[in-house]
């Protein structure tokens, strides 16, 4: 049972996502807050001070998303937690997943969080989409403002804990930040770590 003591600042609940954020019909839950400050952040409002959000309990979120339960069950879909960094709120995610254990759960994360956060949700989450940025510490710092030692350590431990088949690592070509050689080096290093699902792509900077 959940205690509803865990809460998360939810900015957006986007329904009926298909082909982007996980298996089947998916509801994407965007939370506020992130330890990184990436130049081309996809959802910059998740770190903007002026952004308003709702502080939701797992039950309150469940009441909101259950309208699509039939679609989730019929397509093997469920809820994807993104942001921002959803693993800033691991107890909330864990408690939410308990409410509907038969749905499919995905987390989109940078893994730039303490290991205990990853561990807290590991049993409940079926699919991990890890935004690794770049494995080169200098490139990572230049792009995010942070060190990536924790990220790589967490990825290594996550691979051992849940298995490579549940983890997709996204490796972006980042305009004016990394080179083709950097991307290739990241891919090689990740493969050596045991990553099997790699998504190499290019950031498209919107006007």
């Amino acid at each position: 049972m959940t205690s509803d003591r865990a809460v998360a600042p939810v900015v957006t609940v986007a329904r009926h996502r298909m082909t982007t954020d996980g298996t089947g019909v998916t509801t994407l839950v965007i939370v506020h807050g992130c330890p990184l400050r990436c130049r081309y952040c996809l959802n910059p409002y998740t770190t903007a001070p002026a952004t308003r959000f709702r502080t939701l309990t797992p039950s309150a979120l469940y009441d909101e998303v259950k309208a699509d339960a039939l679609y989730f069950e019929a397509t093997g879909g469920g809820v994807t937690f993104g942001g921002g960094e959803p693993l800033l709120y691991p107890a909330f995610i864990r408690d939410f997943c308990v409410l509907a254990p038969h749905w499919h759960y995905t987390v989109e994360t940078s893994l730039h969080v303490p290991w205990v956060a990853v561990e807290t949700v590991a049993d409940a989450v079926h699919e991990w989409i890890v935004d690794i940025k770049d494995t080169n510490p200098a490139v990572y710092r230049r792009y995010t403002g942070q060190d990536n030692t924790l990220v790589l350590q967490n990825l290594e431990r996550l691979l051992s804990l849940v298995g490579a088949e549940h983890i997709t690592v996204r490796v972006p070509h980042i305009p004016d930040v990394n080179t083709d050689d950097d991307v290739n080096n990241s891919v090689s290093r990740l493969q050596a770590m045991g990553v099997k699902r790699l998504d190499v792509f290019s950031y498209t900077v919107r006007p």
Partner: protein
Amino acid sequence: MNGKDKCRILKEIRREIAAQNDIALTIADCRFQGACRGTCPKCEAEVAYLEKELEKRRLSGKAVAVAGIAAAVMLSAGGCTPDAPPAPTEPTSAPTEYEELIGDVPYIPSADEGEVLDGYAPEEDEFLLGEEPLDETEGYGDYDL
């Protein structure tokens, strides 16, 4: 994928659920010409109807088939499957129209700009139930980073 595409796929899913469970469901052609968000009150009413009919079947002891029955519909839409990694994205030029990306929600206007949240338009400086302004001094989440 635009709203009309989503509407079409969701409609197929409802049709499949109805067919697999012997539920009479007539889906009328949608004549809405505006910007479709993938669902509407009429679509939602069909979902509610299906849920009600499925519950009736359960209560009468009949078998109910829902789990995974529309996975094929998603496959035809190019959706992800548990066993297949996403296709690597090739470098692209700027899209000509908005393209939904992984983890991306395009536009979240603030309440100050007259955003309608769940059918309710808040006044300036008015906060909705459970909504809080960000206090940057408190940091984020369950952990200090």
